[in-house]
């Protein structure tokens, strides 16, 4: 087929345009988030003392930390879906969540503690945290990658890693409602490990799926 003919076919197809990446991602998250929420509710559920826990600032901080990761990751994945986009200064947005976490760590250090540091770090259910966040993030990661396929990222693995970060952030936000370990030390250790795992999966999958 010569190039002129191809152009002719492309021009004939000009009315068919795929959805914008933003629309696709919004739809994907609206579908995947209820799935993940349902997974959480029918398996481990919310922690029994959810209402009292809300009065503990370190419990609330968990949601702040996870959302401060998820929202910038969403914004950056949309940015990176354009072929000419680079990470550049956008990467600074990802420091928001670690920044809040470090501030919480310092705050906790300065408070008188009844539980020893090692116990706060290990928490009551670190293994559940390490497995639940990745499992809960799978529907979101799948949906996000599917949506980001509408895009044209210059570096598919990076775009995939961002999809991993956003799904881990959202999954961790939901998981935080179950998690009884509120110490920033616990969050900094186990949430971070779980997030790193999902990010790596996202990067590997993205390298394959987001190539255009």
């Amino acid at each position, binding site marked *: 087929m010569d190039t002129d*003919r191809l152009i002719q076919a*492309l021009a004939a197809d000009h009315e068919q*345009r795929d959805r914008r990446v933003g629309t696709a991602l919004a739809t994907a998250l609206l579908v995947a988030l209820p799935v993940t929420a349902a997974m959480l509710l029918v398996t481990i559920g919310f922690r029994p003392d959810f209402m009292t826990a809300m009065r503990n600032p370190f419990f609330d901080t968990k949601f702040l930390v996870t959302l401060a990761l998820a929202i910038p990751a969403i914004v950056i994945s949309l940015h990176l879906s354009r072929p000419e986009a680079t990470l550049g200064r956008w990467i600074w947005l990802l420091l928001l969540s670690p920044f809040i976490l470090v501030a919480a760590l310092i705050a906790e250090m300065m408070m008188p503690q009844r539980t020893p540091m090692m116990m706060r770090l290990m928490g009551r259910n670190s293994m559940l945290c390490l497995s639940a966040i990745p499992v809960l993030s799978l529907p979101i990661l799948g949906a996000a990658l599917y949506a980001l396929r509408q895009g044209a990222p210059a570096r598919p693995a990076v775009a995939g890693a961002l999809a991993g970060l956003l799904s881990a952030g959202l999954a961790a936000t939901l998981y935080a409602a179950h998690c009884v370990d509120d110490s920033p030390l616990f969050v900094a250790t186990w949430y971070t490990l779980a997030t790193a795992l999902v990010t790596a999966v996202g990067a590997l999958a993205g390298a394959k799926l987001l190539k255009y």
Partner: protein
Amino acid sequence: MHGRDDEWTDLMRSANAGDGVAYHRLLKSVTPVLRAGARRGLARAGQPPDQAEDIVQDILLAVHLKRQTWDTEAPFAPWLFAIARNKLIDALRRRGRRIFVNIDDFAEVIPSEPPAETLPQAEIADHLAGLPPRQRDVLQSIAVQSESIKATASKLSMSEGAVRVALHRGLASLAAKLRRD
């Protein structure tokens, strides 16, 4: 340069607003530039320039299928060249690997002179045959026989909507085949 870039941006804006003629003109106008770029890239990588047309077609398909990622407020040329660069690098990487594999596999039968390349038949034509029958027939009719969507619809006894869908899916499958290649 700036005049050309602005013209492209304007054409693409009109195309987005539904102007098919502007879109056709835009694709025609970018193609020689893409071709020159592909030839230069191949030459710099020490590759024969006769594969440039495959790369150009690959770029055009990507431009077409990914045009929703162009920000209407941004100039068109940087977006276009980002896609072109990406596709060129891909093509060179693919060919590089293929050559390496060839040397590995046929080391003992390779004559001292490089074998003459078979004339490049555009890759797309090869892939056309591998498409699902409907997509293939529609693409054959519109791209190879230059029929309109209307004529294709009546010839294949399909609705015009179905032709449009098959055309779009066919182009997307072609791009996917080129990528996997």
